[in-house]
């Protein structure tokens, strides 16, 4: 995928790094590159003063810097209120060149919207090895798609190659690359040895056209899934955010049918679902950036967790319709709901969620 960049900033200490060399070598010649002092990237990462859309402008400014805090963390969506899937996040980049109207980064990264990639990303491998060594016998699912799309800039960073190389040789670690792109060229050149899972967020065409700006069309995501499956990767799908617009149930079912026509149910490692949820701050930011997007004006009400969500009966009936369709597909696909309480999980799937460690292990290896 090709995304436009307005400027690149490189910390002095990262100038000679392998990542900076790769990126600068792959960039168009007319993109200005500025070197900045170490620990002085604040100006480059903060919102551009005077920009009409500071968050949007930040997405077109790439900052190559050293990460000073740990790369690995539990999924921030985990809380005692919600059933947890045991996912761990590895933050190798921050922000995303795509511009989904509902994206939580619009609030989360409002103060530092530049697209940052961390030149010392290989230091994360030590953290992962320590994690694995301290919990022998456990299997962890680790993903890079929390604060960034895992593959959006892979054509210029090629980080996926380093990651696949590392995870392919680790028995109790599974890498999840989560994306809305069809940027899979690097993946097709690697052997994941069954330890890498590529997952796609899938939405019907109506949501893609209205809300998922610069993302790959849903059909292209499904075709990419087929291609990586054939290349030895495992695949999974996130129906998250699930948006309850008029006609949504019919469209999501058609989408599932399209998916199952291309990827057999038994080849899908898991699916997840999560209703659109927005804090009041995110809702305000999203609506102000995308005032004409009907997907942001659903029948959402303030829920007890302080987020706007589709009112409960409608949200649950949509979850159930999708779960039923997958069930009718002919294979029991491991499934979970993101940021929903155990009671909702039980209502939708007919059984309470299993403990995080067990579900994490199951999702990592099934």
């Amino acid at each position, binding site marked *: 995928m090709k995304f436009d960049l307005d400027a690149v900033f490189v910390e002095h200490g990262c100038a000679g790094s392998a990542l900076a060399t790769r990126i600068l070598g792959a960039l168009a010649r007319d993109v200005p590159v500025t070197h900045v002092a170490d620990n002085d990237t604040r100006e480059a990462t903060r919102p551009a003063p005077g920009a009409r859309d500071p968050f949007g402008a930040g997405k077109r400014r790439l900052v190559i810097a050293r990460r000073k805090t740990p790369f690995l963390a539990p999924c921030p969506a985990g809380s005692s209120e919600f059933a947890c899937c045991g996912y761990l996040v590895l933050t190798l980049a921050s922000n995303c060149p795509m511009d989904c109207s509902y994206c939580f980064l619009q609030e989360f990264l409002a103060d530092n919207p530049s697209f940052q990639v961390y030149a010392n990303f290989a230091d994360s491998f030590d953290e992962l090895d320590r994690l694995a060594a301290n919990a022998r016998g456990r299997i962890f699912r680790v993903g890079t798609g929390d604060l960034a799309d895992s593959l959006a800039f892979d054509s210029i960073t090629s980080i996926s190659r380093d990651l696949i190389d590392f995870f392919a040789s680790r028995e109790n670690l599974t890498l999840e690359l989560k994306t809305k792109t069809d940027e899979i060229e690097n993946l097709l050149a690697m052997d994941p040895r069954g330890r890498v899972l590529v997952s796609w967020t899938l939405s019907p065409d109506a949501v893609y056209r209205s809300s998922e700006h610069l993302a790959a069309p849903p059909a292209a995501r499904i075709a990419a899934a087929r291609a990586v499956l054939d290349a030895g990767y495992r695949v999974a799908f996130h129906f998250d955010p699930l948006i309850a617009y008029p006609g949504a149930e019919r469209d999501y079912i058609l989408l599932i049918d399209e998916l199952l026509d291309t990827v057999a149910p038994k080849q899908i490692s898991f699916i997840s679902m999560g209703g659109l949820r927005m804090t009041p701050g995110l809702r305000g930011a999203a609506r102000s950036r995308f005032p004409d997007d009907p997907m942001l004006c659903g029948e959402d009400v303030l829920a007890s967790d302080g987020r706007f969500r589709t009112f*409960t009966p409608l949200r649950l009936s949509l979850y159930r319709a999708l779960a039923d369709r997958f069930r009718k597909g002919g294979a029991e696909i491991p499934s979970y709901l993101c940021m929903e309480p155990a009671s909702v999980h039980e209502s939708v799937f007919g059984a309470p969620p299993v403990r995080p460690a067990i579900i994490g292990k199951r999702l990592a290896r099934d």
Partner: protein
Amino acid sequence: MNADEIDAQIRMLAAERRLPPSHLARWLAMDAASRAALLDIARVIRLRTGQLMTALDTLEEIAVREHVTVAAILDRPEIRRIAGGPGSAPSRASALLEALRTLRYPLLKRMQEQIRSEISALKLPRGISIVLPKELASDEFTVSLRVRSAAELAHLLEALDRSRPGLARIIEMLAGKK
């Protein structure tokens, strides 16, 4: 009135009502027919500041959801009936906001009505109350009993037991199963 005169009137009303500048800007950014239609109804039923802000927010959301103009929404029969109907300005203002909310949340409103009619059909005795989650934001509802004696308690528990199938239907409706 021409467009400039309408905008001048809108600014005047906004100043009187101390409408926040962001709301005024959004009002003035509407198409000419919508600007005028909102001005007209705001005057006729004398919307207060908060009511005007809520009406503007809700109208914009309906317009985005349905791909229609604010003028087209305000021209619907149910809205025109409120604007031109009897009753005090405050009661018509409340009715307008309620009607707009029904347009903005059609499925929620329908589901709330269905559940309320299901509760009415239970004909529960006084002393038993059922409180639905606000705006159906949860799948839990509250049943409370108000009693002063063991006999009253026994009576209410029997009534509740008889209503078990109806209560089960409400639980299913809240869980999106009906």
